[in-house]
């Protein structure tokens, strides 16, 4: 398999319609399960420990299945960015506010005020950022510090967002394969997170870089061009 998403290589023409149709169908079925589970929780409450456990299991497993379908669709299907002026600090705050993380992880932000707006699809850039944040959280199984910084490049033009963790870092032998589709070191991983993030960023004329030092942690930096005047 190429190290690029089908969306970038032309394979999308063959795979896209199939994935779009199957994804649409599966998401509708998952939606029914989510709605039903929610209804059962409303009606049954937390009165029975075993029932509550099963409802939690259903929610969790449906969540995993939904995430896999979303990754598959994002990886295969070309979605042209629906661009609008975007404040990366606002976006970073919004995505962080939705992030789930354990108490053992501390979130630190250093968002540079007054950055120029970028012209981007908020959903796609948010999704790329979400992937980096989730990777950072999952890298710190024993807790740690997740830092989100924003800034302006040396050229005074490019805007960057950096996500750093204090996890164990990525083994040197794995670093060259980080963007290979389906490459993962996580037992439950699907291996499409970084390829999707890079695909979305590059579709906006930006780039995604990963730097990692064993024992020191990992920093992923997204650089995006400013809004054209």
């Amino acid at each position, binding site marked *: 398999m190429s190290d690029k998403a089908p969306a970038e290589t032309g394979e999308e023409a063959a795979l896209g319609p199939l994935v779009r149709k199957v994804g649409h*169908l599966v998401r509708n079925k998952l939606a*029914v399960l989510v709605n039903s589970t929610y209804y059962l929780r*409303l009606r049954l409450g937390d009165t029975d420990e075993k029932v509550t456990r099963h409802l939690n299991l259903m929610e969790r497993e449906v969540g995993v299945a939904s995430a896999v379908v979303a990754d598959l669709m994002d990886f295969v299907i070309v979605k042209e960015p629906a661009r609008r002026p975007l404040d990366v600090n606002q976006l970073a705050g919004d995505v962080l506010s939705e992030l789930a993380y354990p108490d053992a992880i501390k979130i630190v932000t250093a968002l540079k005020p007054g950055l120029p707006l970028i012209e981007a699809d908020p959903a*796609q850039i948010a999704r790329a950022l979400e992937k980096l944040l989730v990777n950072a959280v999952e890298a710190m199984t024993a807790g740690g510090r997740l830092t989100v910084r924003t800034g302006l490049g040396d050229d005074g033009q490019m805007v960057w967002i950096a996500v750093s963790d204090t996890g164990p870092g990525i083994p040197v032998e794995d670093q060259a394969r980080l963007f290979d589709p389906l490459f993962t070191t996580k037992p439950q991983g699907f291996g499409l997170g970084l390829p999707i993030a890079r695909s979305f960023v590059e579709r906006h004329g930006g780039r995604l870089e990963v730097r990692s030092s064993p024992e020191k942690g990992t920093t992923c930096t997204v650089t995006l061009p400013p809004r054209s005047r």
Partner: protein
Amino acid sequence: MSVTRRILIVDDDDAVCETLSDVLEAVGYHTVIAGDGEEAVTCIQKEDFGLVLMDLRMPRMNGVQAYREIKKRRPAVEAIMITAYATGDLVQEALRAGAREVLSKPLAMDRLLTLIAAVCP
């Protein structure tokens, strides 16, 4: 029941409609189900609703087209669109047509209920 607590659910998947209806009725809203955009427009002609909760991609008339027709007849009706897959263009079109939000399926139900509570106080 006040019109703001009356919700028209529009989706071509019967099970999505039924389960959404059950959740919304359980938390105190009155719901009516329509199987597509044309049926939704017919419903709106007969009775008023505070909100239309509508699938974006449906056969014959998509959610945006249906909402435009609904607004011609009942300008005050709000809309929240839901979708299992939509292009960015269609999402933008829905927002330009006046939809409050476009949510992805499967829905985050707590978020949906919070949004509905804000739209249908």
